[in-house]
């Protein structure tokens, strides 16, 4: 195993996924990448005022995610003496994790089990379920 990719959001199960992957990385010597995907689609419908603020909103969203999601996750990895690379990107979570894993030369994907609300999961399926359907590399779902 050369690299591990952890997809995270605000959930506590994401924290556990980070801890699990960090431990795995420290034991195996694999590199660790932490990614937060902000759900976004180029085909959603927007209002004109949303559009003209979009560039500003994007910066804000990334800054907030760095501070509230990425930094706490990095703090978790410190306990295992692992230094991860991190990124925050916009797009469709499962599809983007799969493509990033491919760019990392076939990284093992690790995600937490819960994230979306129950209603959303019932309607659209959750990111882990989608990942399992489309991933080309192994996927570990941490409860």
């Amino acid at each position, binding site marked *: 195993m050369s690299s591990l990719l952890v997809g995270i959001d605000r959930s506590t199960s994401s924290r556990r996924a980070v801890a699990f992957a960090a431990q795995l990385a420290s034991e195996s010597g694999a590199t660790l990448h932490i990614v937060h995907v902000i759900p976004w689609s180029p085909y*959603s*419908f927007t209002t004109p005022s949303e559009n003209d603020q979009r560039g500003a909103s994007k910066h804000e969203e*990334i800054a907030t995610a760095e501070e509230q999601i990425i930094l706490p996750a990095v703090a978790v990895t410190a306990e295992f003496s692992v230094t991860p690379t991190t990124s925050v990107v916009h797009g469709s979570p499962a599809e983007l994790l799969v493509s990033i894993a491919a760019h990392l030369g076939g990284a093992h994907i690790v995600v937490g089990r819960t994230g979306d609300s129950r209603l959303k999961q019932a309607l659209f399926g959750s990111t882990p379920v989608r990942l399992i359907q489309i991933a080309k590399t192994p996927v570990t779902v941490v409860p």
Partner: protein
Amino acid sequence: MSAPQVRANSVDEAISNAMTPVADFISGIIFYSVKIGNPDSINYIEFPVIVVWLVAAALFFTVYLKFQNVTGVKHAVDLVRGKYSKPGDAGEVSHFQALTTAISGTVGLGNIAGVAVAVSIGGPGATFWMIVVGFLSMSTKMAECTLGVKYRVERPDGSVSGGPMYYLRDGLASIGKRRLGRVLAVLFALFCIGGALGGGNMFQANQATSQIINVTGGEDGPLGQWRFVIGIIFALGVGAVIIGGIKSIAKVTEKIVPFMAVLYIIGCLAVIFSNFTAIPDAIGQIFVGAFIPEGIAGGIIGVLIQGFQRAAFSNEAGVGSASIAHSAVKTNEPATEGFVSLLEPFIDTVVICTMTALAVVITGTWRDTSSAAGVETTSAAFATVAPWFPILLAVAVVLFAFSTMISWSYYGMKATGYLFKDSPRAELGFKIVFCMFTVIGASLSLGPVIAFSDAMIFAMAIPNVIGLYLMARIIRKEVFGYRARVRSGEHAMVDQ
């Protein structure tokens, strides 16, 4: 008649009486018509100069840009599908979003009511000329949206403002016409505020209110005397979005409108195919009527004017409004949005307007002179399929009107922002006035509202098109330079 009805009526009349002279005066200037022939004869023609102005610009840019409206369509579709979007563009405004936002401002009542009027006056042949101008208008739209992106202003916080105010000021300054540019930009902004309050607001509120009253039993129905109150409800809805910042309403509208457009097209197709035996005859009427019309005032020129006018008024190419919406897109190449904007008149005029025209021609409802031509003509065509079909149309009308009002409130706000250096107080003032005009528009009777509102929108085309001609070389350089970069592979498709 009960007391509240008397009060409601007198409010309607008071507003109508106060507005009519102003409306007549303004529309008399903008819609100045060349009159040919004796007013009593069948050959009498009125030729609104503004229509010639718009169609001439469309024809000029079609030739000058070497028919990009034909050769560039496939590339436009590829851009909208994100084939050229880089991964780093994710999270910014996509070509698809810029296009759909602009379309929801353009597709409105003109597509439903206006087309019915054009066919009622000009006969089925008007459809043919409408489609011709729909195609030509794609070029004007390309010109103004390319400039919109090229001269947009990006602020340090990442927000963007663009549109004719900015390209008239900065684009004309770049070719040494600083003073003229400033004057045209201010004129445009003033007319844009007027257009936003008129065609983008009063006309929409007026027609949507009429349609609500029609499906609930007409003037004698329970809502017949309550136009004023329906107007207040519309104003509250618009106000909640633009002043209250209630994004959920705006989001819902933005999501519903594209589906309504598709539903409207399906509705028209249902009308067309449920009368499928009449299809060959209708197509025949459209072609024959376009060149050898019978019983149409002004003959072939009368038909031509109706078709031209409807296409020009419906897709707003040359008016400059869409350029404001398109300029928020994420791109380094202004011409990309020019290409994408080609699709706007295509969808608006060549697809949606043509659907309406086919529905009223095939069902023959355009011949009915018992009621005033407008939404009711289309409604009657819809009723030939099922009695409840006009209700579907009424819902479409109300939603189209609402989304058009939201879009135009934004255009008007940007124009206000331009004039008052983005002062939040001035923008708030505009929004309050906008909501007041919604009530006025809903309360007025049809005639003066249509005249006033159409006039204000088309006033925008005067400074805008002058600017487009003066900057034609800049536009051509952008468009042709970009096409060369696409051919050379410098601007290549991105692996998804």
